[in-house]
């Protein structure tokens, strides 16, 4: 039915099967849209946010998808600026994943601000002393860059590419892509960092507060570093998942191996910095403010020391070691386990830096405050996941995302 739109030389499932998938995830998407409309029409009283939890599930999801989408800027930097040419075979997918992650982040923010009609205030009435202003600037600009990186892919659709103007536009955009990729890397460095900086400058919250250089707390650098390390893991995770679902080999092992190796080294160095930061925070920063390490992880029903061990050891050191060894990278199961654990690790990191910070008592009369999101918050957090799956399905079916697919499946 739609075979004229499918890239030449590749096989896709029947249109009926594809349509059923779209309908299923479209249903989930509509559920999220309904919750989103409830929040926009009735207000933030639809959520379980309160004076303790001004930042809640959405901000965790926001920081999570931005970290996972970091694969786009880091892979783009490696491909276009550093010149790792092999990565041209996975960069399209990294861009698509980044586009989905960043559009999701902006959608979540549009819901979270409560009054989206005034979103432009952040540009016009900018508070130039706020790290979140920098995040808003960089996030918007970087989304524009990702859109520019995604457009040539759309223009390379079999039918669209027949139109000379679109064909030439795609070609010319490819020619100057290095400039856009470098701009994207510059923007990403700052907004990833500033998201970490927001937590690090909270001097009234000893769980999050960190020292640093000039105006930048250590969390600024750790967030950028972790996005560069864990973002490519998400690209590899989604690539492997797509291969399993489609039953096709999409990217050659040497490309996977290179990205996994770079990711492993970046994770390894990040973890050394993270462990030093945690040790200094536990032994110097927190005691200076009247807290011991165990105070942050006791007397509450959820946040035990397990969460620190899970983040640094289980979902940090173990996947890094797997990615650093050639045997680990070449074993499909081990590689998939490592990238899955890495994704969970960075999401755990963002969770504690958003929600545990809020839960932790800071006054002597305070208690731990737990938070359970409302169904509207859950639905609007699942909404971008459904949107992402639909966009991946459509892009995989109609766009030449994987240059090696034809060769690998002939």
């Amino acid at each position: 039915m739609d075979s004229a739109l499918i890239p030449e030389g590749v096989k896709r499932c029947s249109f009926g099967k594809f349509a059923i998938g779209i309908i299923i995830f479209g249903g989930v998407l509509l559920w999220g849209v309904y919750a989103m409309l409830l929040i926009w029409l009735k207000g933030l009283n639809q959520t379980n946010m309160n004076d303790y939890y001004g930042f809640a599930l959405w901000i965790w999801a926001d920081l999570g998808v931005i970290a996972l989408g970091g694969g786009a800027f880091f892979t783009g930097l490696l491909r276009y600026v550093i010149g790792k040419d092999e990565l041209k075979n996975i960069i399209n997918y990294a861009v698509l994943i980044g586009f989905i992650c960043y559009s999701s982040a902006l959608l979540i923010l549009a819901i979270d601000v409560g009054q989206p009609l005034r979103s432009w205030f952040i540009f016009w009435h900018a508070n130039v002393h706020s790290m979140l202003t920098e995040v808003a600037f960089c996030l918007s600009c970087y989304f524009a860059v990702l859109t520019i990186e995604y457009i040539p892919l759309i223009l390379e659709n079999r039918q669209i590419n027949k139109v000379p103007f679109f064909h030439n536009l795609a070609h010319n955009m490819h020619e100057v892509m290095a400039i856009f990729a470098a701009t994207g890397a510059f923007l990403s460095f700052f907004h990833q960092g500033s998201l970490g900086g927001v937590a690090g400058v909270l001097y009234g919250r000893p769980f999050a507060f960190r020292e640093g250089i000039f105006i930048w707390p250590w969390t600024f650098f750790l967030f950028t570093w972790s996005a560069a390390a864990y973002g490519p893991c998400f690209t590899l995770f989604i690539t492997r998942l797509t291969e399993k679902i489609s039953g096709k080999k999409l990217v050659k092992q040497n490309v996977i191996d290179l990205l996994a190796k770079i990711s492993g080294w970046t994770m390894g160095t990040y973890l050394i910095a993270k462990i030093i930061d945690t040790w200094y925070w536990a032994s110097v920063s927190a005691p200076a403010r009247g807290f011991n390490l165990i105070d942050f992880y006791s007397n509450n029903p959820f946040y035990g020391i397990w969460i620190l061990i899970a983040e640094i050891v289980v979902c940090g050191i173990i996947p890094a070691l797997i990615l650093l060894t050639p045997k680990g990278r070449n074993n499909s199961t081990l590689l998939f386990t490592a990238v899955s654990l890495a994704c969970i690790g960075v999401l755990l990191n963002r969770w504690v830096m958003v929600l545990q910070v809020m839960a932790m008592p800071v006054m002597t009369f305070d208690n731990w405050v737990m938070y359970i999101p409302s169904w509207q918050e859950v639905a609007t957090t699942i909404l971008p996941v459904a949107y992402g799956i639909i966009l991946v399905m459509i892009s995989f079916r109609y766009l030449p995302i994987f240059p090696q697919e034809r060769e690998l499946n002939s």
Partner: protein
Amino acid sequence: MFPFSFEWIWDLSHMIFMGGLVYALTIIGIGMTYCILKTVVDTMHGKGGGQQH
């Protein structure tokens, strides 16, 4: 916010923040303008029309 807005102050924070934003938008704008103009010229000269990528 532009320098002629009443909220504008000529201090380092405003110059860095707003300067950075204008800088990024300028690169994106010039890049895309170049691509579109070159595409118009290429198309007028009869280039394109296949799938040569």
